[in-house]
């Protein structure tokens, strides 16, 4: 049948005017063109009737009884053709043909499908956008807000913190809540710490003031009273200390010096110390002896001591006229006197002050000469620890003080301090360190002796030298020189007896011997014997001059106004 349609189609195109159907009875005929026209009309009618190409096709295929519909699919066309025999009336063998182009139908179908597909894609995109917005609102936004808040909380604390408000998933609101709690806690801790810091600073500032007041109560660290050179040092272990030192020149020219250590540390000890300084100073100026000062001081402390503190103290009063040092000790460690040897002042040692009412203290004495040093200290010195936890110790202190005597230094306090600092370097200071030295200044004195040139007069010179404040070693040198020079003058200057003036002068640093005679000009400083090549058997002169000048630290001779003037100089501390 499809081949038939093809052929008809070909005929329609090639011979449209050929009569293909002839009704012999009525003498009617149809050309191919007419056939095509009718077929198209029928197809149009069918279409308008709502017949869908597929339906039609299916009904044709499924209706096995109806053999008049055929699907033509060839290289020429993809068309559905229907032939219907015309029935009814008296017309027989009349065929009505209708044709539907599948490709046209498919075109329509494709268009409908395309629209649907576009719709689906559009809807999908819309849904994705909506989803993205939801995600953005519920996840990304809260995360961003939290992150910003955290950042500003950390980096911009001055701005203050506003509570974090987050709308979003439960995880995020929970997180925001936790973050709010955490920042609240941190803020509270920080303000607590700031308050503590402020309090600490205030306290430190107050302690600083207290320390300044306390240090202000103490006398300067260096004073030259004329007769004595006083040096003091105090380094509190904490902000305020319980140690004290005090000295002053009393009305009668005597010098009062004290050192003390209050039991305990901190504010209470510092207050007690301040009270003690005032009391000691007051009693000292009342003309008491050290024992009387201590007795009165102790009685006052006992009655005004609710805290039960006590104080160890050493008190001394030095009289520059007599050179006598009077002292008394209330439980304090033994001070030292640096003289020709190291002397530990162990006498008159009583109980610490502030403990027992009516305690009687005693006085002890020691004579100081020029150059002698009284050394007072608190146990912060000998009990200072190094990094190994070892004490500086009294042994080391005594060794160092002895070394100071040997070197003849007047810088005893500085020497001890630098040795102590070297020892404790890097270690923490446990206790107040306090020291005081009183150095008796050797005065410039000059003794002038006018003697006759007779050897027995030598005794007078020796006595005068013995009375000086020089060390024994130096005295020996001067006595030897005086003897040798005086004997020379007695023996050679005058033919008979003449006059000899001997001057013995001393000051803080040196001693000077001067011989003046009106005899024959003679310079004893020249032509000294050569000891390495000395003839002991035959020559026995010049040894005295040799000894004198070798043992001195300088000498000079001049002949002036018809007088021999010989001066020999010795340094102290050698």
């Amino acid at each position, binding site marked *: 049948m499809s081949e038939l349609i093809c052929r008809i189609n070909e005929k329609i195109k090639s011979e449209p005017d050929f009569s293909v159907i002839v009704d012999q009875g009525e003498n009617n005929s149809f050309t191919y063109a007419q056939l095509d026209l009718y077929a198209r009309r029928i197809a149009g009618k069918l279409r308008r009737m709502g017949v869908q190409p597929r339906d039609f096709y299916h009904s044709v295929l499924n209706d096995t009884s109806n053999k008049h519909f055929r699907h033509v699919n060839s290289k020429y066309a993809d068309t559905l053709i229907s032939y219907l025999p015309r029935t009814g009336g008296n017309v027989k063998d009349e065929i009505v043909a209708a044709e539907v182009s599948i490709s046209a139908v498919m075109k329509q179908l494709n268009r409908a499908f395309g629209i649907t597909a576009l719709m689906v894609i559009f809807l999908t995109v819309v849904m994705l956008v909506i989803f993205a917005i939801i995600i953005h609102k519920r996840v990304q936004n809260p995360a961003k807000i939290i992150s910003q808040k955290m950042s500003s909380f950390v980096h911009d604390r001055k701005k203050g913190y506003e509570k974090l408000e987050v709308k979003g998933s439960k995880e995020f609101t929970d997180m925001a809540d936790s973050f709010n709690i955490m920042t609240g806690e941190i803020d509270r801790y920080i303000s607590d710490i700031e308050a503590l810091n402020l309090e600490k600073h205030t306290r430190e500032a107050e302690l600083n003031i207290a320390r300044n007041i306390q240090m202000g109560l103490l006398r300067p660290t260096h004073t030259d009273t004329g007769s004595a050179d006083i040096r003091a040092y105090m380094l509190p272990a904490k902000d305020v200390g319980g140690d004290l030192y005090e000295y002053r020149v009393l009305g009668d020219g005597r010098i009062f010096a004290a050192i003390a250590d209050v039991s305990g540390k901190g504010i209470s000890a510092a207050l007690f110390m301040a009270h003690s300084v005032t009391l000691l100073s007051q009693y000292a100026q009342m003309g008491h002896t050290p024992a009387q000062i201590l007795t009165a001081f102790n009685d006052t402390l006992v009655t005004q001591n609710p805290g039960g503190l006590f104080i160890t103290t050493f008190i001394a009063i030095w009289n520059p006229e007599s050179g006598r040092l009077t002292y008394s000790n209330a439980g304090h460690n033994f001070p030292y006197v640096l003289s020709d040897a190291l002397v530990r002042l162990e006498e008159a040692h009583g109980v610490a002050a502030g403990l027992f009412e009516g305690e009687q203290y005693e006085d002890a004495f020691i004579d100081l000469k020029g150059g002698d040093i009284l050394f007072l200290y608190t146990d912060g010195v000998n009990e200072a620890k190094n990094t190994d936890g070892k004490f500086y110790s009294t042994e080391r202190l005594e060794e160092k003080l002895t070394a100071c005597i040997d070197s003849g230094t007047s810088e005893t306090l500085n020497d001890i301090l630098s040795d102590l600092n070297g020892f404790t370097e890097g270690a923490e200071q446990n206790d107040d360190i306090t020291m005081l030295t009183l150095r008796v200044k050797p005065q410039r004195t000059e003794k002038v002796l006018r003697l006759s040139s007779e050897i027995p007069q*030598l*005794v007078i010179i020796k006595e005068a030298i013995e009375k000086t404040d020089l060390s024994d070693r130096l005295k020996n040198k001067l006595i030897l020189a005086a003897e040798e020079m005086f004997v020379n003058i007695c023996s050679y200057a005058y033919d008979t007896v003449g006059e000899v003036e001997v001057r013995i002068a001393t000051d803080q640093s040196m001693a000077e011997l001067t011989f003046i005679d009106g005899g024959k000009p003679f310079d004893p400083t020249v032509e000294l014997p050569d000891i390495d090549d000395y003839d*002991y058997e035959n020559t026995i002169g010049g040894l005295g001059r040799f000894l004198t000048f070798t043992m001195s630290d300088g000498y000079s001779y001049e002949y002036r106004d018809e007088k021999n003037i010989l001066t020999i100089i010795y340094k102290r501390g050698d």
Partner: protein
Amino acid sequence: MKINTTYEEKTCTLTVEGSIDALTAPELEQAVNTAAPQCEKMIIDMTDVDYISSAGLRAVVGANHKVGKGNLAVRGLSTNVYEIFRMTGFTKYLNIE
């Protein structure tokens, strides 16, 4: 100054105490002069001598002359006295015990 002289066989010992200076040296010279003829060897014990001047040294040299070189010994020098002996070269010149 005090001098105590003791004799033991042919050795005499002069024990000196105090200072040997220009004033006391003549006493030592006197003691040496007294003792020297009675002994071949002489010992001067200076354990208790705290001071000696060139006058004292001359007395010691004199004693050395008296008893003859090598027959005099000096003993018991204190630090101060030894220093004088050393400076004047006497430690090399005399027998120091």
